């Protein structure tokens, strides 16, 4: 009798535990889905004369001007990474692993629709607050453009247009929380 009761009790406890587990995993999944996105339509300008595809970095800095996330790094030789001046000074040179992880090839002039989850470099969702998007474009035998746009991460969808520069066409970026 005693053993029977305890078996039943164990079953009930297991069932409750299982249900709890399910709900926890569901809620964490829901939370995962709620991580916002940052969409950037990057425009690299056509240029006259000798053309080398630019090195490009895009990253987010928080209110303390600390980088929380490198979104992209388009580059070739490590030797020229230093020319992405601000990104190299504040981010790249201090984190060789990040550089390796994020690197991809350069691209010639064109339009690039890009989308990123609003997370930091460790894939944790970004907390609400003020951030600045930086886009740095540097071209060998060409110029350098550093674009920045402040935004607040809150519950609102925001859209910005970054004005044309010597190296970039009009860039739109949209924050969807």
């Amino acid at each position, binding site marked *: 009798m005693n053993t029977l009761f305890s078996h039943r009790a164990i079953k009930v406890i297991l069932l409750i535990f299982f249900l709890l587990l399910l709900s926890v995993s569901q809620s964490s999944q829901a939370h995962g889905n709620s991580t916002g996105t940052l969409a950037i339509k990057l425009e690299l300008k056509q240029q006259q004369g000798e053309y080398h595809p630019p090195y490009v970095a895009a990253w987010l800095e928080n209110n303390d001007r600390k980088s929380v996330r490198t979104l992209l790094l388009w580059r070739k030789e*490590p*030797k*020229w*990474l*230093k020319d992405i*001046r*601000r990104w*190299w*000074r504040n981010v*790249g*040179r*201090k984190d*060789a692993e990040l550089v390796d992880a994020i690197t991809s090839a350069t691209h010639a002039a064109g339009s690039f629709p890009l989308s990123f989850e609003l997370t930091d470099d460790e894939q944790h969702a970004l907390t609400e607050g003020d951030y600045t998007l930086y886009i740095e474009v540097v071209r060998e035998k060409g110029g*350098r453009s*550093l674009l920045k746009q402040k935004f607040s991460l809150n519950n609102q969808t925001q859209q910005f247009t970054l004005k044309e520069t010597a190296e970039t066409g009009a860039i739109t970026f949209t924050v969807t929380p």
Partner: protein
Amino acid sequence: MNFKKATLVMLALAVSSQVSAHSRWILPSHFTLSSERGEWVTLDATASNEVFNVDKALSIDPLSILTPSGKKSRPSSAYKAHRKSVADYFVEESGTYKITNNSTPSYFSTYKVGDKRHRARVNKMELKSLVSANATSLQTAYGLTRIESYITMNNPTENYAIDGKFLELLPKTHPSEVVENEPATFVFTYNGKVQSGVEVEITRDGARYRNNPETLTMKSNSKGEITFTPIHAGRYLLIAEHEQEAKNKTLADKEHGGVFLTFEVQLQ
């Protein structure tokens, strides 16, 4: 206005009573490097009053490079041209390198015969036996002038290696993090203690092509610090001087320290 003029005259006198030599510098081809396998850097050394146009080759016999791991190393090759000395160095480790071209502390004497000013690299006692009886304005200083620069490959390190002798510059803002329109702070020490009142001049590259050299002039504060906000990116020469009465006047009347630091101001 009068006061300003007076200080200018005094400053001119102070400078002329000192070594009154050319500015000197080591100018690396790169202050900032990114590399996985190492990079060559070329160092130019010259004595010139026109930042950064070369004039007279500077001896680089004492050139020493302190690696990020604390090893003293020498350039792999060097060449002395008429207007500059050139040295090659392979930067292999990640971190900050301190490059110095310091001679040893030395005596420097000046005196006059009639209106003509003379100099001699001797101490006060040697000077007395050297000069004729009609020599006037005998003055001897004992000091050290440092010629230095920092270069950084990949991650910066605080490889400042201060030795506590004469005038020294201790970066508070890392030399690889001086940025246009952002304040930068350096600290001066004399014999290892923070030194106020150090005279500092900072001049940007390209003085030949400006009517006004746009030299920043300042003095270190009570904490030995100078803080300045460069408004242009580029290469800069900092000249710092400090002179004080010698403690023991047997061999010198004064002692002095100088620092010539070459550094870059980066784009924002």
